[in-house]
């Protein structure tokens, strides 16, 4: 042993001091042969390793590292532990030694017997003591290799380091430029991502440090011995960038930005990366990211579609789409249909981007889908495929008549019809949607197909009771009827009519028929056929009549702008409804709730049809007579009110001069009714007469008709009526407020803009008189009106109201007490009015208010005094005089020696 020892010492001496490199190999051989142990080697190195000369220490470490590289596999765990501790410690040593230390560590980390905890401690030492990017190429490579080795053998331990590991790696790799090392770094990153290391909060950092190489532009030197290619780097980086959905939010903007690059290869790389990432992303849960990815793809396709083609160049769009198709198409054919939706979305996004793209994609996908559909037998699968198909068939802004779909017209219709006969409601619902989509595009359904489709729809309406399916069928019928009215008139309506009139079907079926009829009725020609059928249903139960009325109302609402339908309604429907109405009114004298509802619908639909001013209403005189009669004689509150409203609505819209006859004494019942009924205080119909009077007054007031004054005067007179007084007071509220169902601009009523101001200007005196003479209850109703008149912008109205108000305030009615707050704010606001007279009058009113019982007005004292300080400085002396007088009184209020 002593001899071996001296041999070893000799080798060490020659290597360290004699600089004979070959002695390292000899030493290794000696260790491998068992001639010496590592321990002996370390002992022999003792002097050099503790030398004060860095070069000597470096040489010593170098020898040890070179030997370890040869024989790391034969080391025991104990030896590895000791050596690791030594090397970790050496990391802090002089820089000339570091390369050798790293070589040694690299060898040691390859050991299979790494003691527990050693991986963490080695990494911590490296991350802590070494600035990787200031090392030489080979040493950097060493660090990456150490990382890779440790990730292989000590994955669990490294994951225990958590985000520290990611951070250490990010720091080490930041700035790496050598392609060989980059490959290693990409490998580490890929391992990190794929093996599920926790990125913690360093997701963006890791992405940044990797994505800065994207897109890779690398041309290897001609005599590159390592043979690294651009392709290798690109794929390796792409695997990192698209490896995790956590990168998605950073990656997509980056790609979109790089797409603008001028470098051809960069563009291609971006596109391919985008594509891979789209596929990845579509499988993730984040909808936001998914939609961003899809819109990126769509934008890309539309961009490519606009690219200019050279005669000899390849069509970029074609190339790209074929790439997309290749990747997606097979998902559509897989038996479990797992990735159908992500793929379909990608394809639809691509197809939706441009017309050309849609041609290419549809041409490839639709036959595949149709084939798949026919091969499958499970309803769920078929439904999925049909839903995907619907996405491609759905008309978009880009659709053109010469769509690629025309080629598949036959088979598409075939598939839809077969689906409509399936037993699964879900499949049928989807089929109706596809059918609507097909029907909306010209050329996709032949006349026979349309007829077939209508037959299917009729059958479904009559036979299927699933509510979802029914509503889908109704919706589909509605959209098809708009485009193919003839088929519906000739096939669907007669069939439903027959069913309804057969009287054998149950109520649910009739209900569906009614809904379907309403839904298809959007064109005049259809309405003319369907509405009479609807009216015929009216013979059945109350609920059905109500349903019919709702349907008619829907039709009327739809047809708001169609004159033809409006005319038809007036010609045919309204007389019917009126008849029904009268009939119902007669019945309701002893009937209950449901019929009231029915009538409500009747009236709603009637009111709706009175919307269009240009429609000439046939027999308007008779209609008016009937309405008037109904409004005066009916005892049912809703009915006579509605009749009065309808009457008023019509009167409001009659051309100037024509409706005089209804109002003049000698000519008509209205006057008779109103005056007779109203004068006869014992009459049972006074309320009805009053209601009619009120609504007609409103109708005329709105259009500035001269007769309105006479009518409103009657209302004023009624304020003192013991029975109707409070209703009359309420009535002024009706006159001044907007009405939602009739007499508004939405109903094309004749409404002048300033009618309120005009009313106040003419009537505020009467209002105040009424106010004075009226009982307490009615005053409560009138006060808000007066207050409204005060806030009206018209100065004349303000002035007349103020001058009427002032005497009232001198002897204020009890009711005023509850309105003081509103009164004060309006009056005080008017003290700064631009009109001198308004200022004076309002100050007089404020003055008058100081005489109210002290406890009621004292709370306003401070506010009034403050507000009146302003007009003290009014530019007009007369105003100042009033302000001084009023303010003096308010000062005395509640003050000793005052009042």
């Amino acid at each position: 042993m002593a001899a071996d020892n001296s041999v070893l010492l000799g080798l060490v001496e020659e290597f360290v001091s004699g600089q004979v490199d070959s002695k390292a190999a000899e030493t290794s051989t000696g260790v491998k042969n068992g001639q010496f142990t590592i321990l002996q080697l370390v002992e022999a190195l003792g002097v050099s390793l503790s030398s004060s000369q860095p070069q000597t220490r470096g040489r010593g470490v170098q020898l040890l590292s070179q030997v370890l590289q040869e024989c790391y596999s034969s080391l025991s765990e104990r030896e590895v532990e000791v050596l690791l501790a030594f090397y970790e410690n050496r990391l802090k040593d002089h820089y000339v030694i570091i390369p050798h230390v790293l070589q040694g560590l690299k060898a040691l980390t390859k050991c299979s017997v790494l003691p527990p905890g050693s991986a963490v401690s080695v990494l911590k030492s490296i991350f802590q003591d070494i600035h990787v990017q200031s090392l030489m190429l080979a040493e950097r490579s060493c660090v990456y290799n150490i990382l890779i080795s440790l990730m292989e053998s000590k994955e669990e331990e490294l994951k225990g380091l958590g985000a520290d590991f990611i951070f250490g790696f990010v720091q080490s790799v930041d700035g790496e430029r050598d392609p060989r090392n980059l490959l290693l770094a990409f490998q580490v990153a890929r391992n990190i991502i794929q093996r599920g290391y926790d990125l913690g909060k360093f997701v963006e950092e890791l992405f940044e440090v990797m994505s800065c190489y994207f897109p890779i532009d690398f041309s290897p030197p001609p005599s590159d011995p390592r043979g690294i290619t651009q392709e290798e780097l690109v794929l390796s980086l792409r695997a990192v960038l698209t490896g995790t959905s956590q990168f998605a939010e950073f990656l997509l903007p980056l790609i979109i930005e790089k797409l603008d690059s001028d470098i051809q290869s960069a563009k291609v790389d971006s596109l391919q990366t985008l594509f891979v990432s789209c596929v990845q992303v579509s499988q993730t849960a984040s909808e936001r990211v998914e939609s961003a990815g899809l819109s990126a793809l769509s934008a890309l396709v539309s961009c490519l579609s606009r690219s200019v083609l050279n005669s000899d160049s390849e069509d970029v769009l074609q190339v790209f789409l074929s790439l997309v198709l290749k990747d997606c198409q097979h998902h559509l054919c897989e038996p479990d249909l797992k990735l159908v939706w992500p793929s379909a979305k990608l394809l639809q996004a691509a197809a939706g981007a441009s017309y050309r793209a849609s041609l290419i994609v549809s041409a490839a996908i639709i036959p595949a889908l149709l084939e798949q559909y026919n091969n499958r037998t499970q309803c769920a699968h078929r439904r999925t495929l049909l839903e995907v198909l619907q996405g491609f068939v759905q008309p978009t802004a880009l659709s053109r008549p010469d769509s690629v779909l025309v080629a598949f017209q036959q088979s598409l219709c075939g598939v839809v019809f077969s689906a409509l006969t399936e037993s699964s409601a879900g499949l049928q619902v989807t089929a109706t949607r596809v059918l609507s989509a097909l029907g909306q595009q010209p050329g996709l359904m032949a006349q026979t197909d349309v007829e077939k489709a209508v037959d299917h729809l009729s059958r479904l309406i009559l036979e299927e009771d699933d509510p979802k399916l029914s509503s889908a069928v109704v919706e589909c019928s509605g959209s098809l009827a708009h485009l193919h009215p003839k088929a519906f008139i000739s096939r669907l309506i007669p069939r439903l009519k027959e069913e309804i009139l057969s009287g054998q079907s149950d109520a649910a079926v009739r209900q569906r028929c009614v809904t379907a009829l309403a839904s298809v009725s959007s064109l005049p020609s259809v309405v003319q056929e369907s509405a009479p059928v609807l009216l015929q249903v009216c013979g059945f139960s109350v609920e059905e009549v109500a349903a019919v009325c709702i349907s008619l109302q829907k039709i009327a609402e739809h047809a708001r702008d169609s004159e033809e339908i409006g005319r038809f309604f007036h010609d045919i429907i309204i007389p019917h409804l009126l008849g029904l109405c009268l009939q119902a009114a007669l019945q309701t004298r002893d009937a209950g709730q449901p019929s009231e509802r029915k009538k409500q619908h009747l009236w709603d639909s009637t009111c709706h049809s009175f919307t269009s001013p240009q429609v000439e209403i046939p027999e308007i005189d008779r209609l008016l007579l009937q309405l008037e009669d109904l409004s005066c004689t009916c005892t049912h509150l809703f009915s006579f009110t509605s009749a009065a409203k309808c009457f008023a609505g019509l009167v409001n819209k009659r051309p100037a001069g024509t409706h005089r006859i209804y109002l003049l004494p000698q000519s008509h019942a209205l006057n008779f009714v109103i005056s007779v009924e109203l004068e006869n205080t014992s009459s049972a119909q006074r309320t009805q007469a009053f209601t009619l009077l009120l609504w007609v007054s409103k109708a005329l007031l709105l259009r500035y008709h001269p007769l309105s004054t006479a009518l409103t005067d009657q209302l004023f007179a009624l304020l003192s009526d013991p029975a109707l007084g409070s209703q009359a007071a309420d009535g002024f509220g009706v006159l001044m407020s907007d009405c939602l169902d009739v007499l508004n601009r939405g109903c094309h009523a004749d409404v002048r803009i300033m009618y309120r101001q005009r009313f106040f200007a003419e009537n505020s005196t009467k209002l105040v008189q009424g106010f004075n003479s009226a009982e307490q209850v009615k005053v409560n109703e009138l006060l808000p009106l007066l207050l409204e008149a005060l806030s009206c912008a018209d100065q004349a109205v303000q002035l007349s109201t103020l001058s009427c108000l002032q005497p009232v305030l001198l002897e204020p009615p009890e009711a005023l007490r509850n309105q003081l707050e509103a009164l004060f704010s309006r009056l005080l606001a008017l003290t700064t009015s631009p009109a001198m007279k308004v200022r004076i009058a309002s100050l007089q009113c404020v003055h008058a208010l100081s005489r109210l019982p002290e406890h009621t007005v004292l709370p306003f004292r401070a506010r009034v005094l403050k507000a009146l300080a302003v007009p003290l400085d009014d530019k007009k002396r007369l105003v100042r005089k009033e302000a001084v007088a009023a303010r003096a009184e308010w000062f005395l209020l509640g003050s000793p020696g005052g009042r």
Partner: protein
Amino acid sequence: MNSHQQANRFTQRELQVIMSGGTRLENANPLIFQRSGDRLLTATDEDEDAADPIDDREIFDLIRSINDPEHPLSLKELNVVEQMRVNVNDEESTVSVEFTPTIPHCSMATLIGLSLKVKLLRSLPDRFKIDVHITPGTHASEDAVNKQLADKERVAAALENSQLLEVVNQCLSTRTM
């Protein structure tokens, strides 16, 4: 003596006067002058656009109807105030009023001055600087009264006394005649 104490003294003296005044009139038979008529309305007054500056007459109209604390007469009727002793400058926001007590020893002088001052405070925009003082040479303790009336704090303190305020308010109340 600080101003607050002064104010209190001011109040105390006026109160004594008020209390004694109820029993005995100092000047039982004053000279009575004619009441002046209302200002005549002019076309300018009615013109919306024309600005009417505050003038001497307007100020005089504010104060002429103030009641005398002793007599059931207005200050104008007793010639305590006269239009010629009213001086206003609207642009400079100053107003000066001289009043002439009916007799040189009138103990009501301060009270009259206070009423004038309060009336103007309540009736004029607060931009005005209001000066109320005794017509020079018409009262025995002219300086003292003027000083009291010129002191804002004393006036404010006086008005915080409810008995004093009551008398002032009575002077300022519009009589129903």
